[in-house]
Structure formats: C-alpha cells, structure tokens
C-alpha cells in the first residue's frame, strides 16, 4: 500500500476515525498493531511472520538483559540479538552478493567454484525495522531506557505503519513511551500533519516522480547524450532521490502526527548545506545519528587519535553505503562521501556551519550561494555512483560529462525538462522560504489566506501529477 495511492487514503481515513473513538491505550495499541500488520501485509503477507519473529526475539532478549545483573550474561545476550538481527538482514539482503563475490574471488584464484545463489525476495523495510529494534536492545543494554514489559506496546512500536517501511528509524527512547500514554485529539496537530502530508506528496509526485522518467531516459542512453544533458541527469537524480525519500518521511511524520505521535525529523533542507559535514547533519538524520550513536562513538569517535578517527569515519560511511544495498556502487557512494568529509575533519571545520543558513535574509549571500552550489555539485557526483548500474558505468558517465560534447536535445526530452522547470523553481523557493521550519506552511504568523492559497496550489499540482504513482526508491533498502 503506497502512501500516494487511493487505497491508502481510504485505509487511513477509516483508521483515523476509529482510532480517535477508542478511549483505552491498550485497545488503541491493539488497533494500531492490527492496522500496521494489514498495511505491511498488503505487500506480502508472508513477511509478517518475519517481523513478528524479529520483534518477539528482541522483546525477549531485552527483558532478559534487563533482568540480568551479570555483565557477562548481558553481553552474550546482546551478542545473540546482534547475530540474530544482523544475520537476518545479511541473509535476505546480502547473501547473494557475498556468494557472487566469493565465486569471483575463487575464480580469480584459479578455483572452479560451485557456490550457488538463492532466489531470495527482500522483505520490504527490513533494514529500517531491524535497525530500530537493534537500537532498542542496545539502549536497554546500556541502561539508557527500561525494557518494555508489554508485548503489544513493543509490537506496535516496531510495526508502527507510518515509518515501518522507509523510516525515519525511530529510537525507542523517543517513540516507545508514546505508546504508553493516552493521547488527546488535537485539531492543530491534525492540521499540521495534513499540511506536512501534502508537502510530502508534492515532493514525491510532483518532483521525484516527474524527475524519474527523465533521469531514466538519460541514464539508460547515457552513451548517446551530450555532456550538459548528462549533468542535468545527475542533478535531477539528486532531486529525485531527495523528493522521493524526504517526501516519504514527511508523509510518515504527518500521518503519525495526526494520530498523536511525534516522529523525529529525517531531513532538514539538505541541499542548502554549505559543506558536506552540514549535509550529513541534514540528510537522512535518523540513519546518520544511528550510525553515530551505535557505531562511530562506540568505536571511539573522534577521541581515539587522529588515524583511528579517520578509520572510524571511513567505517561509518562505508557501512552507510552498504546499508543501502548489496552493490559496490553503494559502497563507492559511501566511500566518496567519506573522502569529501575527511578534509573538513582534518582541518577541524566539520562543525563550522551549525547556524541556520541565510539568517532572516530573503536570499543567500554570494559566498553562501557558492558554498551551496559547490556542496551540491559534490553530492550530485556521488549520487551518480548511487544511481549507476556499476562503478564502471558511473566513471564512464562522469567522464562523458567532463568530455564537453554538445548536441541539441530532442524535442520530447527538452519539452519534459521545460515542463519540470517551473515546478522545480516553486519547490526550491518554498523550501528556501520555509527553511527555518520543519516543513513549509508551518511558519507562525503566516496569514491563513496565504497558507490556503499555497495549500490549494500544492494540492492541484499533486492531483495533476498523482497518476504517475510510482513506488518509493527507499522501499528497496
């Protein structure tokens, strides 16, 4: 069930009305759990068993950790949990990748390998909910939070449908306590949630889904395209993946807010970043902070000496790339981002831009514009690796951009680009104007008429683009 589908609209409207009629926390959680399983089972009901098993294992292990006073026993329980969860992700997501790579390696070494791959279907959202439950068990192990004693609460937390399949990867410390309190209906929250859903839909269907066919056409025939068009393809992919993923996050946060839940922010206008370090504080915040808290800091972070810290940075970025999928292109993407980040770290300027960009000005200064442009260029280059079928293809694509070949694009492709341009301008202007808010239209003091006009305009654009109805890129991760 896609967020940008009529079936989800009907599903959510029904759920919303019933949910607020229920006056008991326990019943609400049972209802939410059922709804979440229906939502998840809509893709493939067979994976419901997997999520249930994963949740029950983590629930039991966390309880056992909490009840144990033996550090050794607690440690082994944590290891068992990590092995189970990471083993599950490893099997479903990386098994074939490792088999294929092992075959290649053995072949190179002169052996005749007979390792066979399996036909494995990747369960939707497995990387997201696994990381979510892992953080819970680790937090319990660290005694940063008490274990949850009610299974229904825990199951509802893991499978909470707005963020189940593509995040934000919620921490138990933030989300789990929200399942213990009886929330009161709040109209302002519902209206704010609706606005955020609307903006998320705009980013998904009007930006990402309109960029997608152009990007596909350029990447599929990149050997026949001119340099400027290849550059346009890379830039549009940057917007496609941002619109797609942040659009999903906005819808998820908005939907949760309408049910009285507060999810963490996942994107903070990342393309207005002045350097890569700032970009990574603004992009996929729930994943980057997860890696910071559960990988980077336990490895010693930046306090483990210069060389060790550098190694930690590379480990985190490479893992972040590998988390996205079993392909060298994702690892190369992570590696490039590490390369971008390291100079800032060595110069001690990676925390230079902690202030809000642009202050209260209407436009960025010349210096800020250049910084934003430079950062965006670097990011777009890295995205080429993310989008390409192979590392060779990515290098070839980038070489062709640098080759400076010029050709007038066909009328059809150029027409699509012109059709997209006003939407992009509208999108960037709105994002820039509301960059200090969590999402557009949230600015206090905005005249209601302005909000209505913007909302109606956005609604018309969404409905005019809604028929494209493509799936979300991050579902595959």
């Amino acid at each position: 069930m896609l967020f940008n589908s009529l079936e989800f609209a009907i599903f959510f409207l029904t759920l919303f009305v019933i949910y607020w009629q229920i006056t008991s926390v326990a019943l609400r959680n049972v209802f939410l759990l059922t709804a979440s399983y229906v939502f998840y089972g809509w893709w493939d009901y067979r994976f419901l068993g997997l999520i249930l098993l994963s949740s029950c294992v983590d629930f039991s292990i966390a309880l056992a950790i909490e009840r144990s006073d033996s550090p050794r026993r607690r440690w082994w329980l944590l290891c068992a949990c990590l092995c189970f969860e990471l083993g599950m992700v490893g099997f479903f997501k990386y098994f074939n990748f490792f088999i294929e790579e092992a075959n290649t390696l053995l072949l190179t070494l002169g052996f005749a390998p007979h390792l066979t791959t399996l036909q494995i279907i990747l369960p939707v959202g497995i990387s997201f909910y696994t990381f979510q439950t892992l953080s819970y068990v680790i937090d319990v192990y660290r005694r940063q939070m008490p274990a949850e004693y009610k299974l229904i609460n825990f199951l509802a937390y893991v499978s909470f449908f707005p963020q189940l399949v593509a995040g934000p990867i919620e921490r138990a410390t933030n989300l789990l306590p929200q399942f213990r309190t009886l929330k009161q209906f709040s109209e302002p929250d519902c209206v704010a949630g609706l606005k955020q859903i609307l903006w998320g839909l705009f980013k998904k269907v009007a930006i990402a889904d309109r960029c997608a066919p152009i990007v596909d056409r350029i990447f599929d025939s990149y050997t026949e395209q001119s340099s400027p068009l290849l550059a346009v393809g890379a830039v549009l992919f940057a917007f496609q993946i941002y619109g797609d993923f942040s659009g999903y996050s906005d819808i998820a946060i908005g939907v949760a807010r309408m049910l009285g839940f507060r999810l963490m922010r996942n994107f903070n206008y990342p393309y207005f970043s002045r350097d890569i370090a700032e970009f990574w504080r603004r992009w996929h915040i729930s994943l980057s902070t997860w890696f910071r808290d559960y990988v980077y800091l336990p490895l010693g972070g930046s306090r483990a000496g210069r060389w060790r810290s550098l190694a930690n940075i590379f480990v985190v970025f490479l893992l972040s790339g590998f988390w996205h999928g079993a392909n060298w292109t994702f690892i190369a993407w992570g590696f490039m981002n590490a390369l971008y980040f390291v100079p800032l770290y060595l110069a001690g300027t990676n925390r230079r831009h902690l202030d809000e960009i642009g202050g209260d000005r209407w436009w960025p200064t010349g210096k800020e514009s250049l910084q934003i442009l430079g950062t965006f260029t670097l990011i777009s280059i890295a995205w080429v690796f993310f989008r390409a079928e192979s590392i060779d293809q990515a290098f070839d694509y980038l070489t062709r951009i640098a080759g400076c070949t010029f050709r007038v694009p066909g009328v059809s492709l150029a027409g699509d680009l012109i059709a997209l341009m006003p939407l992009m301008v509208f999108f960037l202007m709105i994002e820039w104007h509301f960059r200090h808010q969590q999402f557009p239209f949230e600015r206090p003091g905005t005249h209601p008429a302005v909000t209505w006009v913007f909302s109606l305009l956005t609604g018309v654009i969404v409905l005019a683009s809604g028929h494209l109805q493509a799936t979300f890129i991050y579902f595959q991760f």
Partner: protein
Amino acid sequence: MPRLFKRLFAFLMLLGLCLGAAYLITGYAAGNHRLATWRLKHQRLAALTGPRIILVGGSNLHYGMDSELLQSTLQYDVVNMGIQGGLGLRFMLAEIASSIRSDDVVILLAEPALFSRIPLDGESTLYELVSKVPEAAQFLTARQLLAGYRFLGPTISENWNYVSLLVLMRLYGRPTILEETNVFGDYEGHRDRKSSLRPSQAEPPGDEMSPAALDLIEGFQNSVEQQGGRFLVGFAPLAESYANFPALRVLEDQVPPHLRLGKIINSVLPDSCFYDTPHHLLFEQRGPRTRQLIADLRAAGVQTRPRK
C-alpha cells in the same frame, strides 16, 4: 473532530474548483494540440451541403487517408473525423449521429482494439479533448461525464507538458499537428518522412468484438438508416508483424455481413508501409489505401455521383 472534517471538506471543495479551473485553463493554453483538429472537422461536417462520406475511426484515418482523392473520385463531399482511438467508439458515433442527413455514407474504419481493448466509453484522451474543446462535452453520456473526475489531474498534467512542448516547437520552428492537418481533416506532416516503426517482437493481441460494441454498431446503423443514410464498417490498416491473423478473421466474421466493407486481410500491410505506429500509414501509402477503399465502396454499391 467534526470541525476538522468541516475544514477538510471546505478545502476539498475548493481544491475541486481549482482543479476544474486548471483543467480548462491548461486546456485552453494547449489549444494548438492535435485533438483540437476536432473543431476543424466539425466545422467542415456542418458546412458541407451535399451528400457526404463521413469517415469515422481512430488515428489511422488522420494519418492514412487521402480524402481529396476520395472526394474527386466518388464526387461525395468527404470529411475525415478520425482523430484518436482513445476517444472510444461510443463518442465517435455519438458526435456525428445528430448530423447525419439523407444520402450520407458513414464509414467506420476502426482499429481492431476499438472493439475490445479500448473501452467503449473511451480513455483519458476523451477528457483531454474536452479540456481543449469544451463543446465536445455535449456528446458525452452522463456516465462518461461522471467518470471524468478521474482524468482531471492527468489531463492537467498532459496539457502542461504539451504547453511546454509547444514552447520548444516554436523555438525549433516546427509546426504542430493541427497546423499540418488539411481542410478535409487529413494529417500531412509526415510527407517525405521515413518509417520508424519497429517490427513487433511480442505476441499480437487477439481482438474480438465485445457484445456491447456490436449492440452499439447495430443501434447506430438503425439510426443512420432512419435518417436515410448508409452505414458501413471497414478495418484500419495494420502492420503485418502486429497482426494476429486468426483473431482478425474472427473479428471480421463478427461484423454483420451487410455492414462489412472490404476484407480484413487487405488491411494488413508490410511493416515498411507504416510511419510510427502499426496503424499510421506513411504519407505515400495514403493513395493506395484510399484507392482500395474506393474499390471496396464500389463493390458495396456506393457508386460515383454525377459530377457537380
């Protein structure tokens, strides 16, 4: 919660109005679209005074008919109403039903898909047409009008894309399809163009006539005959690699014999005769096809009228 739903309802109502306005405004801006040839064709249909040959069908007619040759040979006034199959059979017949006069010959030259795969009530194309030519809405049934809400968004999107394309076509100095359609309603912009049709690799579809399509045709036939006209059903040209011969013969047999015009096998031609789709003939293939139609019409008893 009731207050929230009231606000939401008000927003949705306003959104509906805005959507309707955007539908018409973008349709007006895209008024140069090939679907706008509908207006030209209807102006000609109304202006002709003598007995007429009215050609009805999809884009096969727009691209592949030499109406001038047909008119000069048979001495009937000819109007080519063909625009696109997506308008659906019901609309194609309804839009001419009230204009038929005594001695008119109405010829349906339909792509096989019009009888089965394309819904009788038409596809999104129908609502794209109405946004560009609002007066076309008078030929829609109430059910078709009600079904239109699903196509408001996609049509706005299509219009928006077309307006962008139009800007480029002006920059590139290229004429539009509307501008390259002659007074009879025939497209001429593919003159001197080569075939870009790729042979089909897929299993050709089998199109059988749906009972509803047959009812529609028979009902229309009665209506035409009551008004003193004649109705015939022929077949659109079809590229060989896209033809499912056994299915085509079944389709031919389903057309009532007294309405049938020509043999379906004669409409199947080598792929090299087609321009860009398996129904769009190359410009130079329009003449032979029209001559075949004339021969079929004569065989069906439609003779050359005395010269005016």
